[in-house]
């Protein structure tokens, strides 16, 4: 029976076999030992038509409970302008491979160049690569990059205020790569500069990684960090939410040497954790240690402006075990997502997204405190996300929230409750959330 993705007719197959000099498909596998040929039926469902496939996924979709999202913790429900998925659906972008043949890949190469330009502008650093898998893996690569840049220093310090998944992924890479880690403790919800000073006395610190907006939603004040680190020839690496960099002090302005983070906040669907796109940027002097693909401007033989993958001699396909990283595929299409999103938003749109999210989050924060059921944990400046403590029973609270269609009050490992508002949250939704919570005690 024919199948829509296989164009071969029986006659085609006969002619092709004739040319290939075989009489059967079996003969094409005559070099495979008989015992390895799988003779049994595959334990898979029977082929479905498109109609059946749609129905199947619709049925699965109904097993999910749709929730209005009031959580952050590394994935944010920002608005995606219609134009972004529209552009991404163009098959010339979607179905292309890595732009090795530059002459017929100028589309991909140009948007990557634009992406690099946007990341350098947002971070205030000199250079950026063509994207990483996600924020946490970008952070792990930043760790290895910092270690390779700071000769003879062996220890990487991590702030305890980094997101849990960022810490977990870095710890995993460090364990296998053989990197010694240290932790800078938290004071009042932010990274403790005094604790950093004590660590630095050992003289073995290659870098500190610290979030700019931390796991509690607090915007960290990094005054003095770069100075302390640079005095010891150690690097400052910041983990950032790129959406916020249009309004908060940039890695460049804090004196950071490397910045990394997740572009998900640039309007990407939460999509249960992926695809997102990590980013990695640095000062010019660390360019050679920057992993992954990088696009540069040049000219073609007729002198026309053109773009090309460059500095490839750092990469795995040339350097093999000596490469700066093993990364090969990145998240190119999601880099296009981030690029089109930023193009549509512009500086003013990005500021507005932050302003609306800020205002809504602060309103929700105050409304929750006003119920008397929550307590402030840290009195520190925050943007769109914050944590509170409560004496309410967590299970009861979660049950009530979910049955009313909310995903909110995610419990952190410290036992705090995380809330987040983006520009998508309406006053009606915010009021409804608060009233679900107050009804818990009133009933």
């Amino acid at each position, binding site marked *: 029976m024919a199948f829509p*993705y296989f164009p*071969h007719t029986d006659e085609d197959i006969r002619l092709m076999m004739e040319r290939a000099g075989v009489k059967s498909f079996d003969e094409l596998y005559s070099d495979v030992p008989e015992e390895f040929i799988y003779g049994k039926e595959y334990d898979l469902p029977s082929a479905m038509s498109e109609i059946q496939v749609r129905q199947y996924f619709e049925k699965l979709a109904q097993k999910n409970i749709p929730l209005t999202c009031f959580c952050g913790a590394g994935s944010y429900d920002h608005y995606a302008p219609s134009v972004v998925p529209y552009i991404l659906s163009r098959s010339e972008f979607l179905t292309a491979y890595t732009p090795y043949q530059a002459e017929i890949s100028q589309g991909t190469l140009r948007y990557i160049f634009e992406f690099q330009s946007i990341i350098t502008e947002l971070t205030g650093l000199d250079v950026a690569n063509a994207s990483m898998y996600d924020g946490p893996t970008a952070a792990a690569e930043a760790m290895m990059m910092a270690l390779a840049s700071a000769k003879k220093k062996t220890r990487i310090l991590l702030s305890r205020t980094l997101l849990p998944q960022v810490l977990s992924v870095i710890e*995993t890479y460090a364990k296998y790569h053989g990197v010694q880690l240290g932790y800078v403790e938290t004071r009042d919800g932010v990274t403790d500069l005094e604790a950093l000073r004590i660590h630095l006395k050992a003289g073995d610190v290659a870098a500190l990684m610290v979030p700019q907006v931390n796991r509690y939603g607090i915007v960290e004040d990094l005054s003095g960090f770069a100075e302390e680190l640079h005095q010891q020839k150690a690097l400052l690496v910041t983990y950032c939410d790129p959406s916020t960099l249009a309004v908060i002090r940039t890695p460049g302005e804090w004196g950071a040497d490397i910045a990394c983070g997740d572009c998900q906040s640039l309007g990407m669907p939460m999509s249960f954790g992926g695809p997102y796109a990590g980013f990695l940027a640095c000062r010019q002097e660390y360019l050679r240690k920057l992993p992954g693909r990088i696009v540069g401007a040049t000219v073609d033989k007729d002198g026309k402006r053109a773009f090309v993958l460059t500095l490839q001699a750092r990469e795995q396909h040339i350097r093999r075990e000596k490469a700066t990283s093993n990364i090969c595929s990145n998240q190119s299409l999601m880099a296009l997502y981030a690029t089109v999103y930023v193009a549509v938003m512009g500086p003013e749109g990005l500021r507005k997204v932050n302003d609306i999210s800020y205002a809504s989050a602060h309103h929700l924060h105050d409304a929750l405190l006003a119920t008397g059921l929550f307590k402030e944990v840290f009195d520190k400046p925050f943007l769109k996300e914050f944590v509170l403590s409560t004496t309410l029973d967590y299970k009861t609270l979660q049950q009530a929230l979910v049955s009313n269609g909310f995903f909110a009050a995610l419990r952190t*490992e410290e036992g705090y409750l995380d809330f987040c508002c983006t520009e998508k949250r309406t006053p009606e939704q915010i009021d409804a959330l608060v009233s679900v919570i107050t009804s818990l005690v009133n009933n």
Partner: protein
Amino acid sequence: MKYYDKLIFELSSEGRQGFSLPQPSYGGTTSDLPENLRRASSVSLPQVSEPDVVRHYTNLSNMNFGVDTGFYPLGSCTMKYNPKINEEVAAMPAFKDIHPLQPSRTIQGVLTIYKELSSSLSAITGMSAFTLNPFAGAHGELTGLMVMRSYHRSRGDFARVKVIVPDSAHGTNPASAAVCGLEVVQVKSTPQGTVDVEDLKPLLDDSVAGMMMTNPNTLGLFEPEIKEIAALVHSCGGLMYYDGANLNPLVGVVRPGDMGFDIMHINLHKTFSTPHGGGGPGSGPVGVTKALEAFLPNPKVVVTPESYLKVYGRSGRPAEDDDMAAGQVSGFMGNFGVILRAYTYILMLGRENVRKVGPLSTLSANYIKESLKDCYHLPIPSVCKHEFVFDGLEDKSTGVTTLDIAKRLLDYGFHAPTIYFPLLFHQSIMIEPTETESKETLDAFIDVMRRIAVEAAENPQTVLDAPHSTPVRRLDETTAARHPILSYKNLIEE
């Protein structure tokens, strides 16, 4: 394809706007943040209207070549057709609008997909269990090697620090081993292009963690001594790793799990039809044997006795006591959007059509190979699997190199094959046609390849100067590397 020379920054005009956002409902803005926490520098990003954006990126897309544009015989990349229903399923709001930390009971549909895709991959490969968390092939390799090391460590064996890699391997194999803290030992190929078992034997001792192989290898050759190789590696206490980059010809015919492999990764963006997206997002699930299941990374989907699906081992949650997992390799649970597309493809294929994937891709490759071997040099003339390698033109006197042939193909509307890889030959041309190309397409490609061989002999300058009809011609890569211009800011400063 038409040359278009703008960057989005060059369309910008102060005060233009492409966004549409609601008015704030509450007072307060980010200007209320303490001054030293606020950005001081101006934000030099494009200010453009929505029509500007659409036209700009449409023009950019017109300078790109994709699988939907034409034949893409890129060796080891499996550029098969990307079905359109995959895209529709991935865009369903019920999957797209899910926060990765939502409670398990609100995402039973999502977790069912993880479970069912994992079992389907097990059925196709013969591995016992899969993690879908790795983001790409190289990321899968790294994850698989972490599993390998965890297994040895769990037995109290810390001395296994070497991994054996054939000299024909993809560059990611040694690079992944290095990131995983393993030392790479190279094993030679025989003149027939497969692993030299005699060269392998002396390398095997109790410092070997395992061996990485692609089978068929990068020459498209099935490793005839795979059984002996696996037995040798196992008898020295090592594990066998299968690099799934070349899985396509085995789909429906041979299962890596039956050949003695303990760990493998799959590139969903190659074998399971998800689009390459100009270099990602991909997905690199890792499968293991029963004995290694506990070492798969967190978070994972577990089935409770009441057949309820639960996410286990999310970061920031208390660690469970019996956790032997290799660690956590992704922020959440991989590229779910890609996972959805691959599962859609598997449901369309079903157990009937899965049997045709490998044989049709193998037939296509052998068809091209036999049709061109009189004008291109075929160093290893045996039956190939899904791909094969020519070592340049048969006639080496023309001065036309593999690079020139690749560039000339672009003029004729084909993407170039993979070139100068594998490194075993000087003029490698690696061709992989896949099972979704018609005989007519293959014939057209064969005709053009033959025509280029004739041009090389009769009018070599045309080939040496190619491409002629693309939006840009050959690029000055040396200047690009010597004086890197990597952002718009750099560009306008020049």
